């Protein structure tokens, strides 16, 4: 499944159409369209600060979570629990950061990242176990676990991890040595971004050149065929895919808390895990194309914030644009037969 010219054209067309529809909506609602557009473009790509501290800072979680979704979906596992796995990773990294920093110093950072990945993998592992042992569909279990994770975070920031004064429902701030380094002085872009890029390359190489990656893809293309013709243990492959997906989502959570927020609080993820489905979709589940789609969603978010701040246009329009992009990507292969990503459960 290589991104070819036709699929690239189709995706570009979909994005253009979605933005055009939203622009029409903004104009129809009586806002100054050119002002809004200028604010959005400046906020997303207008200056080095906009690119590094707004767009690319937002791209990092979208990219990692998009990859997490893609790893699962490519193996035919519908993991819609990236949100919960992200929160589990963030909570674990925060706990490690708060308690281990006085003992370990600089090395805490590595432990935070590892804890995030393990926690994300374990959170997805619950769903994997329920699927394997009790035949509970992962679509339902991963979704339910999102809400459990949100409530666990809400408990942690009011209980064991709450800041000492007890006035706010959030954790203490991580020590500077327990944070991901910033890449450029004065900018908010952190080391999580190159980590995400390396992860994208690694995932691409995994699917393209390894036997395990081939088994993932086979299982996703057709369970029955993979099991009978390919002698693949599809149940084991899907379990591994779900756990790997959770580990990546947990990594995203760890990077967000050690690179951006430095504290754990309830609204840490404004639905990143759900947006990630859109990111992965637009990228056709291809790891390198997901880099592009995550950057687009990062720019969309940064532009929408600037638009609301400087031109008074509701940021909700960006959410509409994102939804239209996904629907457009779904509609195009059906109506034009241009793009054929391998879809779980597709005829």
């Amino acid at each position, binding site marked *: 499944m290589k991104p070819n010219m036709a699929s690239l054209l189709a995706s570009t067309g979909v994005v253009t159409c979605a933005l055009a529809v939203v622009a029409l909506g903004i104009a129809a609602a009586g806002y100054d369209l050119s002002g809004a557009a200028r604010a959005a473009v400046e906020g997303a790509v207008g200056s080095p600060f906009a690119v590094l501290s707004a767009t690319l800072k937002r791209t990092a979680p979208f990219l990692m979570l998009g990859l997490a979704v893609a790893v699962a979906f490519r193996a035919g596992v519908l993991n819609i629990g990236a949100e919960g796995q992200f929160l589990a990773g963030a909570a674990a990294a925060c706990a490690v950061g708060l308690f281990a920093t006085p003992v370990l110093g600089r090395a805490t950072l590595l432990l935070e990242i590892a804890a995030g990945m393990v926690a994300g993998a374990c959170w997805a592992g619950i769903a994997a176990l329920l699927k394997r042992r009790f035949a509970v569909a992962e679509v339902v279990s991963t979704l339910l676990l999102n809400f459990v994770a949100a409530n666990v975070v809400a408990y942690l920031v009011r209980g064991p991890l709450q800041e000492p004064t007890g006035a706010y429902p959030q954790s203490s701030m991580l020590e500077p040595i327990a944070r991901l380094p910033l890449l450029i002085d004065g900018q908010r872009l952190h080391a999580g971004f190159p980590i995400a890029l390396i992860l994208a390359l690694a995932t691409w190489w995994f699917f393209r050149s390894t036997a395990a990656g081939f088994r993932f893809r086979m299982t996703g293309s057709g369970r029955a065929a993979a099991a009978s013709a390919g002698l693949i243990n599809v149940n084991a492959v899907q379990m591994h895919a779900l756990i790997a997906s959770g580990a990546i989502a947990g990594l995203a959570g760890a990077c967000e808390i050690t690179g951006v927020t430095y504290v754990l609080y309830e609204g840490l993820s404004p639905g990143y895990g759900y947006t990630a489905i859109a990111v992965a*979709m637009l990228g056709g589940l291809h790891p390198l194309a997901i880099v592009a789609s995550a950057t687009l969603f990062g720019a969309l978010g940064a532009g929408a914030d600037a638009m609301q701040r400087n031109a008074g246009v509701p940021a909700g329009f960006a*959410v509409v644009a994102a939804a239209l992009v996904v629907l457009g990507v779904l*509609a195009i292969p*059906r109506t034009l037969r241009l793009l054929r990503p391998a879809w779980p459960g597709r005829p």
Partner: protein
Amino acid sequence: MAEMVLVGNFLEAAVRSATPLGFAALGALIAERAGVVNIGIEGSLVCGAFASFVVAGLLGPEVGFLAGGLAGMSLGLVFAVFVVALRAQQIIVGAAVSMLGLGLTASLHRIAVSSTGPGAPISTFLPLQVPVLSGIPVFGQAFISQPVTTYLLYALFPLVGWGLYRTVGGIALRAVGEQPSAAVSAGHSPARIQCAALLACGFLSGLGGATLVVAQTGIYSDGMSAGRGYIAMAIVALGRWTPRGVAAGALIFGGVSALQFLTQAVNWRVPYTIVLATPYLLTLVAMAALRGTRVAPAALGQTLNRP
């Protein structure tokens, strides 16, 4: 005596919290019995809430309630077009439709606020007392001192049950969810049936969202559906895909959110957030315990070949 009032208050709050969930879960039940997983219900809920707030402010809560249903149904139509006509993956479409509903309502709300100021609270349905029945201790206070929308929901559960199990259309709908090819052999069109099921699902979800406004708060706030669309799917699984089970499941989830009031009243030491997580865990345990007894529709979530 004080205990009985407390129990009555708690059950009354439980039924109140369960009402929007019940509408949405009933919608989810119909869609899932027709083989469609619709996580776009969240979008229908929030659109229903917004539309009912706007329309109720102009034309009163009755029309507002209906408008909420229609708004939810229009989002259900979008979902149906993509899933049934274009045969796209249900989960992806559902996620996108939820985003669409949340984004649209947030944008429209801000536009409305910036042009006319925040809308004043609308007049809501008041609890409707039924002679004799409302006077029954505890039971009357809990179940028969509710807004008229809750009584509508009481009537809908047996009605949907009758429709699903005792009518040709309902049996065909369940056949589509179990074995679509058998439904085709019997002369039914799965596409048409799934479309109808999704419109009904959207309408009921919209009514659920409208309930939040016209029967409870009287105001609209962004994202006020607060994940109830996803809870509805959990309720359907917990209720083993039957109307009776869904009614019980909605009451359980409603009861847990009503515990909020009870824990404050009796000064419990249990962290409330942990209590909030229990119904999700309960659903997972219930689904795991059902291993071997296949209760979910067999063709649930499958993309059908022929539209």
